[in-house]
């Protein structure tokens, strides 16, 4: 039985990745689960310089989901290269570095710094709803998304995954725009902009007022958007959004995802990625599926 997939020329031992921002650089979870069992780790977004992020509260739980407005706090590429990459390089798993920036030159600088690093793939965050500059500003306009894709592709030495936002009218148009600009893969969906109000205090639950909704509440939206993107582009898709169990991951694969990122579910169970991988294996045994690649986009 084969669970390995090929993501933009990089082989993954299984399709399960950790979603950026929910798993730190892997170190935080290394005591609680086996990183070697992951197809890959997608790291917390890193910028060219350290970012302080947003004021607190940054987290609010909602029914079947959560809102976050971390604001891409990160220690900057220098520390990341010195501390986080060497840590991950000790494990038998793929390293996918999520890159964030406020301007095109920020993104390009990080991609250049990573060129000679033992990193397998870059995931470019043009879809964070919680920062004012950069982030989603590039992710809601197909022309801007294409321009930033071209600029990064011009310097990147690793395959480039563009992470798309669901906060758009037409996800297929966004996927086509970055594909035409040279993206090697797309990743979707990032969180959906939401808001929670504390009725007793009559205040916003988050200091940032709005935050990104994640968790099982958004899963059907992810399935629909992965399906729409899969019908629109030929490049591989990393599917994510509210995956809590093997069945959720399989839905995204059947809709067209080559790999699946697991995010918020890490908070509900630090070993969830391993359980999801085991669950997919069981499903394949039960269903007589020899090769997981048979399932990718099998529902149309």
């Amino acid at each position, binding site marked *: 039985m084969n669970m390995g997939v090929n993501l933009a020329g990089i082989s993954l031992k299984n399709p399960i990745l950790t979603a950026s921002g929910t798993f730190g650089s892997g170190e935080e979870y290394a005591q*609680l689960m086996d990183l070697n069992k992951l197809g890959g780790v997608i790291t917390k977004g890193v910028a060219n310089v350290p970012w*302080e992020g947003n004021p607190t509260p940054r987290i609010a739980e909602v029914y079947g989901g959560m809102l976050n407005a971390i604001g891409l706090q990160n220690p900057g590429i220098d520390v990341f290269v010195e501390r986080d990459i060497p840590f991950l390089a000790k494990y038998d798993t793929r390293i996918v570095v999520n890159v964030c920036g406020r301007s095109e030159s920020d993104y390009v600088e990080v991609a250049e710094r990573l060129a000679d690093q033992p990193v397998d793939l870059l995931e470019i965050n043009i879809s964070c709803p919680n920062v004012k500059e950069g982030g989603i500003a590039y992710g809601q306009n197909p022309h801007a998304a294409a321009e930033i894709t071209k600029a990064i592709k011009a310097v990147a030495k690793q395959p480039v995954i563009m992470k798309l936002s669901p906060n758009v009218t037409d996800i297929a148009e966004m996927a086509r725009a970055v594909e035409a600009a040279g993206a090697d893969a797309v990743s979707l969906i990032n969180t959906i902009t939401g808001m929670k109000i504390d009725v007793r205090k009559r205040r916003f639950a988050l200091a940032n007022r709005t935050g990104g909704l994640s968790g099982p509440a958004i899963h059907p939206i992810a399935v629909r958007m992965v399906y729409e993107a899969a019908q629109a582009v030929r490049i591989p898709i990393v599917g994510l959004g509210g995956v809590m169990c093997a069945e959720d991951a399989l839905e995204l694969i059947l809709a067209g995802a080559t790999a699946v990122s697991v995010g918020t579910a*890490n*908070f509900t169970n630090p070993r969830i990625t391993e359980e999801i991988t085991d669950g997919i294996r069981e499903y394949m045994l039960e269903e007589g599926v020899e090769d997981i690649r048979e399932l990718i986009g099998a529902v149309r």
Partner: protein
Amino acid sequence: MTEKFYEDAIIIRQEEIATNIYSMWLHTEQIARLAKPGQFVTLYCRDGSRLLPRPISICEVDRGDCSIRLVYRIAGAGTAEFSRYHTGEQLRVMGPLGNGYPKKSRKALLLGGGIGIPPLLQLVKELNCEKQIVLGFRDECFLVEEFEACGKVYIATEDGSRGTKGNVLDVVTEKGLDAEIIYACGPMPMLRAVKQFAVQHGIQTWISLEERMACGVGACLGCVCKSTKKDAHTHVKNKRICTEGPVFRAREVDI
């Protein structure tokens, strides 16, 4: 990084010790063996609509019996769910998390406010020095007898129904308490006042903070507080309450 475990604990017993304040003893495989005063655990809800584990401070540790005691307040649907659990039921727990209080052999003043009181109990049991304990409540008191077994206890209530009418610092002033070290846990306005008092009197002070958390292990950066200097891990002026804290030297955080 401190060693931590994700395990199924068994409820030994649970009781309501004051209105909406619950005391739960849990049998754990590993957590009790490692737990230090001031550390916390996270409890996972069974109801799948509540995704995030609830951080709760460790009130007491019985290492011989492999058990920990949690004293928590019903603050929402998650803690309400825990309060309905009975003896013998299983509960998913992660811990011990965070750093805990440093234990110094100096004349100590322990200041606890409301639901910030429980983590001071294991600390006071383990401190080997002169101890003065001030507990502040809105009205209804809890855990007082347990603290009285460990040192001199002073009480403040907001409504004046017991002890000094006012807050913990009103007691410190009224009784003229002095100390070489302060350990505090309580609501933010109390901690701000304690920090100001400590600065004025030049007393080394350790405070325990709380914030909305998601992962509990330092990955998501949800629960940060402002630090006065650039933090060695985050490389910005933010410290992770779940990892660098929850206990901080008062002067290292901007509260």
